[in-house]
C-alpha cells in the first residue's frame, strides 16, 4: 500500500532530513514512527501526501506514484489520507464544527451526512459541547483532538498522525489510541509518529525508528526501544 524506495529529502536550506528511506507498509498495518527530535519523522510523513516532494527516490501509495502525480490530482490523493498535524493546522476563523466539516465538504458530502458524521466524531474525541468554539478558544489538547477528528471524519484509507498525543494527558491519550485501534481494526492503515514510550510499549505494533534521516530499526510488535 505504501512503498518508499531510496527516498532522500534535502530542504531548500540544505538540511538533509532523509537520506535513503526504504519502507513497505501493507494495507491495514499500524506503524509507529519513533526517533529523536529532528530525526526526520515529520518529513517522512509529509512525503506521503505531498506536503513536501522528495529530492530523490520514489513513493507509491496504492500503486499511485506520488512524485509524478499531476497537481490537479493531488487533492484526491489527500482525501484518502487523514492527517493529524503536529501543529494541528486548524483554520483559525472556522469553528470546531466547521473545521471538521471542511474535510467532508471538499468531497461534497450532503449536508445531512456532514452534520451526522461531524457530531459523531466530535463526540468520539470528547468535544461535542465545543462544536461552536473557535480554535483559539480551545486548550492545546482540545485543538489536538479537533485535528484528530478532522483526520478520521471522512473514513480515509490511511490515517497519518504526527505526535497526536503530545498535548494530551495519559487518560485522554489512551482513549485516542483506542479510537485509532478501532479504525485500524476496520482496515485503515495507521502511521503514527510519537515520542510516547508508554503508548508504544502498551499498544504493541510495528515500530520504525528513524535517526538522522535513516531507518535504524523496523520491528513488528516492537517496543519504544530508547533507554529511559
Amino acid at each position: 500500500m505504501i512503498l518508499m524506495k531510496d527516498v532522500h529529502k534535502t530542504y531548500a536550506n540544505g538540511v538533509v532530513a532523509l537520506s535513503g528511506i526504504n519502507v513497505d507498509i501493507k494495507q491495514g498495518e499500524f506503524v509507529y514512527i519513533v526517533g529523536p527530535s529532528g530525526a526526520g519523522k515529520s518529513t517522512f510523513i509529509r512525503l506521503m501526501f505531498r506536503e513536501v516532494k522528495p529530492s530523490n527516490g520514489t513513493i507509491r501509495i496504492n500503486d499511485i506514484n506520488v512524485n509524478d502525480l499531476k497537481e490537479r490530482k493531488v487533492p484526491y490523493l489527500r482525501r484518502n489520507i487523514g492527517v493529524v498535524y503536529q501543529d494541528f493546522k486548524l483554520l483559525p476563523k472556522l469553528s470546531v464544527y466547521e473545521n471538521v466539516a471542511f474535510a467532508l465538504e471538499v468531497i461534497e458530502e450532503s449536508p445531512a451526512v456532514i452534520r451526522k458524521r461531524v457530531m459523531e466524531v466530535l463526540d468520539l474525541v470528547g468535544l461535542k459541547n465545543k462544536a461552536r468554539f473557535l480554535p483559539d478558544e480551545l486548550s492545546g489538547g482540545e485543538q489536538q483532538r479537533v485535528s484528530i477528528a478532522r483526520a478520521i471524519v471522512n473514513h480515509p484509507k490511511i490515517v497519518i498522525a504526527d505526535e497526536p498525543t503530545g498535548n494530551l494527558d495519559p487518560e485522554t491519550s489512551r482513549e485516542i489510541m483506542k479510537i485509532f485501534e478501532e479504525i485500524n481494526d476496520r482496515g485503515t492503515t495507521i502511521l503514527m509518529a510519537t515520542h510516547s514510550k508508554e503508548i508504544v510499549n502498551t499498544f504493541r505494533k510495528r515500530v520504525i525508528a528513524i535517526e538522522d534521516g535513516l531507518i535504524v530499526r523496523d520491528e513488528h510488535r516492537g517496543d519504544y526501544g530508547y533507554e529511559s
Partner: protein
Amino acid sequence: MRHIREGFKNIGRNGWMTIASVGAVTTTLILVGAFLALMLNLNEMADNIEDDVQIDAMIEQTADEEQIQNLGNEIEKINGVQSAVFSSKDDQLNSLIDSMGENGQAWQMFEQDNPLNHVFVVKTADPQDTAPVAKQINELQGIQSVNYGQGVVEKLFEFNSYARTIGLVLILGLVFTAIFLISNTIKITIMARSKEIGIMKLVGATNGFIRWPFFIEGLLLGVLGSIIPVAIILTGYYYLVNNISQHINYSFIEILPFNPFAFQLALIIVAIGALIGVWGSVMSVRKFLKV
C-alpha cells in the same frame, strides 16, 4: 451554493480586513466617480462650444435676390452642411452694434450707409468640417469671402483636442490606478490568509473549491465598496444639477442632465467595483493555490 454561503460568511469572518478592503474600494471609486462626472461634463461643454462655431459666407454686394436664393441652395448641397440661414446686412450691422456694447452706439450713424454684406450663416453637422466646408463655399460664384474665425477656430479645436487627450489620459490613469489599488488591497488581505489556503489544500480541497468563495467574496467587496460612491454620486449630482447650475449662467456651461447621466455613472461605478473585486480576489488567490 456552499461557495456562495462561504463567500458571504468570509466577509464577516475577516472583520477588520473586510472593512479595510471595502474602505479602499469606496474611496477609490468616489475618486473615479467624481472625476468621471467632471470629465464627461467638461467634454460635453467642449462639444457645446464647438457647436457654436459657424461660417459667415459674405455675399457679393452685386448679387440680386434670385442669385442669393440659388447660392443658398448650392451651399445646402455641400457635403457636411447642416443649415444655411440668410442674414441681411442690416441684421449684421445690428448684431455688430449689439456686440460692441456702449462703443457700438457710435456706429449707429452708419445705418443709412451700411458698408456690410448680406451673409449666409452656415452650420456644419460636424464642427470639425468647418474649415473644408468654408473653403468650398468660398469657391462658389457670388460669394465674396467667408469668415469663420479663421485661426481662432483652428486653435479652439486644437486646444479642445489637447484638453480631451489630457482628460482621457487622466481618466484612464485614474481607472488603472483604481484597479491597481483595489486589487492590491485585496491581494494583501488574501496574502494574510495564505496559510489558511495552504491548510485547505492539505485537507484535500481542489483549487476550484477554494477559489469560488473568494470569487464571491471579491464580488461582494466590490459591490459593498460601491454603495457609498453611488450614493454620493447620485445625491451629489442631484444637488449640483438643481442648485449650482442655476447660479452659473454661461451659455457654454451646461451640465449633463441627472437622468440618465447620473444613473449611467452609478452603473459604471458598480461595474468597476464588482469587476475589480472579483478579478483582484481571483488573481491573488491563484498565487497561493500552488501549495
